[in-house]
């Protein structure tokens, strides 16, 4: 016991000596603007492109094409894990160390503001500006922070309503119509509706869709003033709460991420499913799918009319610490070009950011859901664009989850959400 007491005094002692060790303490970036913004703007040379683990058949091929065209400015791919949180933390760690190894990075839509505010991302202005002509407006805005373009949209994503066309003649456009159709599910002895309700980013997406679809909103245009404490937002959330309460949404859906929902839908146990486009190809082709040829997609329902999807997707950004920014911007533009966008869609089922690609007849023939997806993305609502996104999304998730579990009312939930977003946005 004595030795613990001794250690206590040692800890106290070390407090005095710490400043020695403290140099290089966390944080970094910082400052109203980053000096690194002005450096290496015209330099060219080999670069590294960082993204989460490649799980499509497009990315490797696309990089190979670039390397063939630019033998002196080769791109090396650095793959992170496929966990979004780990990708985020890895980027922060490397930016924070002012690491010049990461030249071009793939940034989830919702991290863009945080990274921009930390001074990690090279503003795409002046010589580095991108041409936004022909790009989907929502995707372009999703890569801006405080009116400056900090990243280039590369792939987009939007939610769709999957439904069993063998059981439902016309897809519902409102929540009421959807839940009215639940009697069909009952007759067929299957569950009615599910989305992503586990407590993770998917819940933020689904709760936002319910709230936005009912005419509510999460935050004001400034990205930080909470507006979620409103009767509309509560009514939107209440739709999901009621669904759980009366069994139209199966109880097990509280643990659903994308995959559990897809599995339920493919095994024929679900009438309606909110999910991303990736499900389409799998449900249509997998040997284990029991709904081949029996399903279709529609835009998400809202309270009084067609709803609004939450916008998904990835931006590509240039690190402020890159040594070869001229090459980097060329590569970013290359990824945005119409041909590459088409390739992303064809080989990787990644939603393009150019409207024209959605209308390509050959692609539409192969992917009949493209027009629906375009509608979804064009009407999609972005999640709050705020440097405090991590805290904001927790505020949404925690309180929405509590409402779905019935431990607080929708009204209390949106009130707490607003308070927590307020606290988060003031950096507390």
């Amino acid at each position, binding site marked *: *016991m*004595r*030795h*613990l007491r001794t250690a206590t005094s040692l*800890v106290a002692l*070390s*407090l005095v*000596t*710490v400043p020695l*060790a*403290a140099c290089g*303490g*966390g*944080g970094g*970036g*910082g*400052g*109203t*603007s980053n000096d690194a913004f002005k450096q290496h703007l015209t330099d060219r040379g080999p670069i590294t492109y960082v993204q989460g683990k490649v799980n499509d058949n497009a990315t490797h091929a696309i990089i190979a094409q670039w390397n063939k065209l630019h033998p002196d400015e080769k791109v090396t791919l650095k793959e992170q894990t496929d966990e979004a*949180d780990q990708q*985020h*933390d890895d980027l922060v760690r490397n930016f924070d160390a002012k690491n010049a190894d990461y030249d071009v990075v793939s940034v989830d839509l919702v991290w863009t503001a945080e990274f921009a*505010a*930390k*001074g990690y991302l090279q503003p795409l202005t002046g010589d580095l500006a991108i041409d936004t002509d022909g790009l989907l407006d929502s995707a372009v805005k999703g890569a801006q*922070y*405080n009116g400056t373009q900090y990243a280039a949209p590369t792939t987009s994503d939007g939610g769709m309503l999957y439904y069993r066309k063998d059981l439902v003649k016309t897809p519902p456009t409102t929540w009421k119509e959807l839940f009215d159709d639940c009697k069909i599910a009952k007759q067929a002895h299957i569950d009615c509706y599910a989305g992503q309700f*586990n*407590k*993770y980013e998917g819940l933020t997406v689904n709760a936002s869709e319910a709230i936005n679809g009912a005419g509510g909103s999460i935050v004001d245009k400034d990205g930080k003033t909470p507006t979620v404490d409103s009767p509309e937002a509560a009514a939107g959330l209440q739709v999901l709460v009621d669904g759980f309460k009366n069994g139209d949404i199966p*109880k*097990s859906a*509280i*643990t659903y991420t994308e995959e*559990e929902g897809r*599995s339920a839908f493919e095994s024929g146990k679900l009438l309606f499913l909110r999910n991303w486009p990736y499900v389409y190809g799998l449900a249509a082709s997998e040997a284990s799918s029991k709904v081949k040829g029996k399903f279709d997609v529609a835009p998400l329902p809202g309270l009084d009319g067609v709803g609004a999807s939450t916008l998904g997707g990835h931006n590509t950004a240039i690190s402020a610490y890159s040594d070869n920014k001229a090459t980097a911007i060329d590569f970013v533009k290359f990824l945005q070009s119409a041909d590459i966008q088409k390739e992303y869609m064809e080989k990787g089922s990644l939603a393009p950011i150019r409207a024209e690609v959605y209308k390509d007849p050959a692609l539409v023939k192969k992917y009949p859901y493209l027009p629906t997806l375009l509608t979804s993305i064009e009407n999609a609502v972005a999640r709050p664009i705020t*440097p*405090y996104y*991590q*805290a904001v999304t*927790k*505020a*949404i*998730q*925690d*309180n929405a*989850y*509590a409402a779905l*579990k019935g*431990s607080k009312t929708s009204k209390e939930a949106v009130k*707490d*959400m607003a*308070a*927590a977003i*307020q*606290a*988060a946005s*003031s*950096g*507390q």
Partner: protein
Amino acid sequence: MNDNAPGSVATAPARRRLPRRRAGGSSLDPHEKRRALLLVSPAMIALAIVIGYPVVRAIWMSFQADQHVENGFFVQGGFAGLDNYKHWLLQRCGDVACPPGSTGSSFWEVVGITLFFTVVTVSIELVLGFWFAMIMNGKFRGRGLVRAAVLIPWAIPTAVTAKLWYFIFSYDGIVNHLFGAHVIWFGDKWAARSAIIVSDVWKTTPFMALLILAGLQLISDDVYEAAKVDGASAVQRFWSITVPLVKPAVVVALLFRTLDVLRMYDLPQIMTGGGAGDGNDTTTLSILVINETRNGFNSAAALSTITFLIVFGVAFLFIKFLGASATGAEPKAKR
């Protein structure tokens, strides 16, 4: 320095073994001292780099405010005094109480959950581990195979273990299937906690069993034989011979398991993401630390420091409690 400080885990039994090294004995031998420092220094250097440096750095950072946004960019927060500690201990978010859905609001709940996991899993592991060790210490065919089998759970990387059990306990998984149940394991508070406890106990009981087994192997059969001749029953033999003699090994195993569970991260993170129940019912302190690093390094450093102090406190009580009993009545048994 007193070699036999009362209550120190490792020194307590030494008095039994080495009566000649009594407290307050002959004066210190300088050669011995130099040799000791030489032997100890590699360990201390490794620990200073890998653990000491980050700990000291975290303590320093915990007194700095997190960066905040000015004119759209993050700027350094400057000296914060105890604000980061108030954020956690008093659950203050600036001038207001932390609202539900902020990391600060869940602090005490998370402390409770972490302690709950610790008490329950370590207790179960102790009982099971002791029992496993007793059986494995017996003489039977295929001992080596059994010892290998018991190690399987410990040998599987934690991330894989977590996914395995996530899978086993999923709604459409094998547990619900075998028992014809419809339990939503990761949605309900107690079901989720039970699932995490089962996985953790499954994974780490072998650790406990193995350390206790090694302790049991030090006990000579003669001791038991002698006690048997003296007419001691099996129960008496267990409490008066086995328990006191393996106690040092058990205490070490218990202590390290306790420290580990108090810092548990992977299992609950992968299985529930800290969710279930009302939303944070399986969040441990380490999960909260990671969540907080995404909000601010300095407040996260304060939380790491608090966690460190909590673990320190538990270890202190632990040693005080177990150490006190270890210095009690001398065991009757002799080798």
